[in-house]
């Protein structure tokens, strides 16, 4: 009885959601970056699967139903983009200049570094979109032909990096303009960076947020061409 229940998609979905809800609560209370709900929940679920002897193929029957919701979640990004119109308008030139340069720089630098370090072709395609917000990165990576699991990890890691070092990097680089700090962090490290930018100040936060979806769209438009040329 129990072993058949363990193989039900219902069980996999329930376990995933329960673990996420618990850790999310922990994270919201502490805001400690090690309690990152995605990464910690992933580790715990991998252990649960190991302990219950469940194959990933079995888990993903339930998992795929959760993954399906990423489509609507991507479309839902149209709402923050709409709400950011005033913020984008207020600094249109700066945001566009920053987002376009940043998107190109992100693709080129990631690919150059990874190539120089001898990373395989499939991995290159799977981390190229790492500076875009996760659902958009997933869409871009599918078009590039990369691995959907690896890009999720790469985007999460980039967000954590951006959140942890963003403010210090800007200080070291002597960036004085709050607008530039915000756009820089948001373009490089999407929502992970933005959560730190919000703590720096209102201007930094709103500029960082405004850069997220625009960076995703810009990268989606240029990535297929740039990657063909660089990989």
């Amino acid at each position: 009885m129990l072993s058949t229940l363990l193989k039900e998609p219902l069980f996999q979905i329930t376990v995933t959601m329960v673990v996420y809800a618990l850790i999310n609560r922990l994270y919201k209370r502490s805001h400690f970056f090690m309690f990152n709900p995605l990464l910690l929940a992933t580790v715990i679920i991998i252990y649960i699967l190991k302990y219950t002897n469940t194959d990933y193929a079995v888990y993903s029957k339930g998992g795929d139903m959760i993954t399906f919701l990423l489509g609507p979640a991507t479309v839902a990004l149209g709402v923050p983009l709409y709400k950011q119109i005033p913020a984008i308008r207020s600094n249109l030139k700066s945001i566009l200049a920053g987002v376009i340069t940043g998107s190109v720089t992100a693709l080129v630098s990631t690919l150059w570094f990874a190539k120089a370090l001898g990373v395989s072709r499939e991995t290159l395609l799977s981390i190229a979109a790492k500076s875009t917000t996760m659902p958009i990165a997933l869409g871009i990576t599918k078009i590039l032909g990369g691995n959907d699991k690896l890009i999720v990890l790469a985007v999460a890691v980039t967000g954590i990096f951006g959140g942890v070092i963003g403010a210090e990097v800007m200080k070291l680089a002597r960036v004085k303009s709050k607008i530039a700090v915000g756009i820089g962090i948001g373009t490089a490290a999407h929502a992970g960076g933005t959560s730190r930018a919000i703590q720096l100040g209102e201007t930094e936060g709103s500029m960082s947020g405004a850069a997220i979806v625009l960076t995703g769209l810009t990268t989606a438009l240029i990535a297929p061409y740039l990657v063909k040329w660089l990989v």
Partner: protein
Amino acid sequence: MAKIPEKKGIKILEGFVIILLMQSLGTFLSNYFKLILPGNLTGLLLLFLVLLFRVVKLEQVEGAANLLLDNMMALFIPLNVGLVTILPKLKQEWLAIMISLLASTIIVMVVTAKVVELVEGGRRNAKYPS
């Protein structure tokens, strides 16, 4: 009193339907016209456009959109768990991947911010002296 949450639930359902419609239409357009944008991104732009041209009101979709966006990390867990399927490859390349991600993130931040300061400097020199 009991009516308020009920209305909220219907709003979220309605919003979800609008989002699904935009996704379907976006996917159709991307496939049919072989657009470079993936269907979901075309759907994102369509949702943005119907909001911009007031075909759909913000409060019609806001609830559903926030529900999806606020809990988006939960939706990525199954894919992330799938990393176990590429573990051998990760063991081999993780350091190179981490270094590339970190180095690129720093470079993108600095280059982007400097470009923004240049653009701003040209526009209002007095406020942001180089």
